[in-house]
C-alpha cells in the first residue's frame, strides 16, 4: 500500500508546480516535456511490452497534429470541378478525430506488423512516416505544405465561474497535459497488468510459446498498435493546439528517435520508464539551449543513446529497482513488469 502512494505524491508535486514556480519558461518546458512523455508512454506499449521496434511512431503523432489542426481550421479541396468544403469544427471534435484517425492508421500498421517482423517491420514503419511527410509537404491544397498551418486555436474548456476559456495561459495547458499524461499512464498500466497485457508481454518474450497456449498474438499486437497510435495522435493534437502551428517537420525521423531514446533510457517495458526518460530528454534540450548549439545537443543525444545501450541496457528504472530490491535483501519481489537482461 505504501509504495502505491509515491506516484501520486509525485503527481501532487507536479500539480503544485505552477503555484510556486516563478519563471513561466519552466512551465513551458514542463508542458512540452509532458506532451513528449505521452508520446513516449504510447511508444512504450508497442516497443516495451509487445517488443516491436516501431521507428515510424512520429507518423501517428504527426497525423494527430494535422487532423486536429485541419478539423479546427476547416479546409476546402477541389477535385477537378467538384469542390469539397470541410467547415471549421470545435476544438474538441478535432481532438477526438485526431485520436480516431491516428488509431485507424495504427490498425493498418498493426495488421502489417503481423506479416512483417524484425528489420522489415522497422523499415516499413520508417517508410510510413516518410510517406506521411511527403504528403504533408506536397499536398499543398490541404496542408499548405512547407508554409505550415498557422493560427490554430488553442483548446478551450468550460470552467465553472469563468465560462468557456481558451487555453492561452501556460497554466491551463500545463494542467491539461498533466491530466492527460496521468490518464495515459493509468490506461497503459491497466492494460499491461491485465490478461491483455500479459498476452502482449508473452508475444515479446516468446511468440511460439504464446501461440502454443492459445494467445492470439496478432489480435493483441493490433490492440497494442491501435492504442499506441491513438495515444500518440492525442499527443500530436495537444502539441498542435499548444504550439498553434504545424508543419511537415513534425514527421521527421529525429522525433521518433527522441521518443525511442526516452523509452530506452528510462527502461522499456516498465511503466515509469518513459516518464523518467521523458523528463530527462524532454527538458534537457531546453536546459542545454543556453550552452550548446542544437548540433552539439544532437551529438550528445546520439552518444547518450549508444552509452545507454552499452552501460545501462535495461534503462534507468529497472537498474534503480534492482538496486532497491538488493538493498531490501534477497527474496524481495521484483518489479512485476521488469524485463530480464
Amino acid at each position, binding site marked *: 500500500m505504501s509504495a502505491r502512494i509515491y506516484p501520486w505524491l509525485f503527481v501532487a508535486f507536479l500539480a503544485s508546480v505552477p503555484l510556486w514556480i516563478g519563471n513561466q519558461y519552466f512551465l513551458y518546458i514542463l508542458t512540452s516535456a509532458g506532451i513528449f512523455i505521452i508520446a513516449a508512454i504510447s511508444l512504450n506499449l508497442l516497443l516495451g511490452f509487445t517488443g516491436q521496434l516501431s521507428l515510424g511512431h512520429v507518423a501517428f503523432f504527426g497525423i494527430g497534429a494535422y487532423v486536429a489542426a485541419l478539423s479546427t481550421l476547416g479546409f476546402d479541396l477541389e477535385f477537378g470541378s467538384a469542390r469539397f468544403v470541410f467547415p471549421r469544427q470545435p476544438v474538441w471534435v478535432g481532438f477526438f478525430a485526431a485520436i480516431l484517425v491516428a488509431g485507424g492508421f495504427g490498425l493498418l500498421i498493426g495488421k502489417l506488423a503481423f506479416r512483417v517482423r524484425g528489420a522489415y517491420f522497422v523499415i516499413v514503419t520508417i517508410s510510413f512516416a516518410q510517406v506521411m511527410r511527403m504528403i504533408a509537404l506536397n499536398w499543398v491544397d490541404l496542408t499548405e505544405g512547407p508554409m505550415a498551418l498557422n493560427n490554430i486555436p488553442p483548446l478551450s474548456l468550460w470552467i465553472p465561474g469563468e465560462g468557456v476559456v481558451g487555453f492561452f495561459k501556460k497554466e491551463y495547458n500545463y494542467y491539461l497535459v498533466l491530466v492527460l499524461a496521468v490518464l495515459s499512464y493509468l*490506461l497503459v498500466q*491497466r*492494460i499491461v497488468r*491485465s*490478461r*491483455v*497485457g*500479459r*498476452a502482449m*508481454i*508473452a508475444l*515479446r*518474450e*516468446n511468440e*511460439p*510459446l*504464446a*501461440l*502454443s*497456449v*492459445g*494467445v*492470439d*498474438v496478432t489480435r493483441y499486437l493490433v*490492440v497494442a498498435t491501435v*492504442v499506441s497510435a491513438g495515444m500518440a495522435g492525442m499527443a500530436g493534437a495537444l502539441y498542435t493546439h499548444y504550439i498553434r502551428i504545424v508543419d511537415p517537420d513534425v514527421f521527421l525521423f529525429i522525433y521518433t528517435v527522441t521518443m525511442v531514446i526516452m523509452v530506452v533510457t528510462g527502461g522499456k*517495458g516498465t511503466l515509469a520508464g518513459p516518464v523518467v526518460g521523458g523528463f530527462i530528454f524532454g527538458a534537457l534540450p531546453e536546459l542545454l539551449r543556453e550552452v550548446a548549439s542544437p548540433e552539439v545537443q544532437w551529438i550528445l543525444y546520439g552518444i547518450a543513446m549508444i552509452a545507454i545501450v552499452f552501460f545501462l541496457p535495461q534503462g534507468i528504472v529497472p537498474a534503480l529497482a534492482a538496486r532497491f530490491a538488493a538493498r531490501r535483501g534477497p*527474496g524481495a*519481489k*521484483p518489479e*512485476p513488469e*521488469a*524485463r*530480464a*537482461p
Partner: protein
Amino acid sequence: MTGHSSGRLSPPGALLEVANVAVHFSGLVAIADLNFRVPEGRILSLIGPNGAGKTTAFNVITGFLKPTAGHVLYRGHDLTRLAADKIAGLGVVRTFQRTSIFGGCTVFENVLIGSHLRGRTETWRALLRSARVDAEEQALAGHAREILDFVGLGARSGELAGNLAYGEQRRLGIAIALAADPKLLLLDEPAAGLNPSETEEFMRTVGRIRERGVTILLVEHDMRLVMSISDTVVVLNNGVIIAEGPPEAVQRDPEVIRAYLGQGYKRAAG
C-alpha cells in the same frame, strides 16, 4: 477432394488421428506418409532417430507447420486448417524441445500467461477494471498456484523464470502447458538434459498428469522412460513408421532393433 470433412467422426476411442501426413521442405522429404492414432486417456510415444521427423510431426499437429499433404483429425476438427492458437483453444497443447519459457516474467506470471484461455477479459474490460475482472484475476491466480504446486514450483513463484535452474525451467515449461487446460498434451523431449533423479520425478509427474484425464503424446530419447510409461510406442525412421505397438512388442521387433535401437540398446537392455 480430401474426403475428410470436418464432420467426419474419428474412430471410436481415438482422440487424435494423423492421416496420410506428408511434409516436404524444398524437395527434401521430412515426413513421407505418417498415419497413427492416439487413443483417449493413453500415453503414446513417438520415437525414432534424430531427423526421423518427430518434431516435424509435432509442428504439424499443433499448427506451427502446414503439411504438404494429409490431415490431422481431432474431435471432428481438421487441425491442419487451424492456426496454432486456435488449436490450443481446442485443448491440444505442446511443449518445446528446447527449453521454452517467458524468461523475463516471474514464474507465477509464466503460468498466468499459460492460463490465457481461461480468462475472458478483453481490452475494454481491462480498462474499466470491473469487479468481474478482479474476480477473474483471482480465479486465474488460484489456478496458477495450484499448477505450480502440482509441478513442485510453488515456492519459486516470485522468481524470474530466466533465473531458474535448468530442471526447474523444464518443469515450468510443463506447468505453462498444463495451465492451458490440455485434453491432449504433446511433450517434445521433456526429459532431455535431466539427471536420473529429475527424470524419475518427471515420470511420476507424467503419471499424475494422466490421472487428471489428459491424453499424452510423447517424443523422447530416454528409452527407459518411454518403455516404462507408454501404452503404445510408434517408431519412426526416415519419415516412415516402421513399428507400432505396446512397448514390449516394439522392443522385440527386429526391424526396430536394426534400424534404430542398435547394438548399444541391446546391451543396455541386457
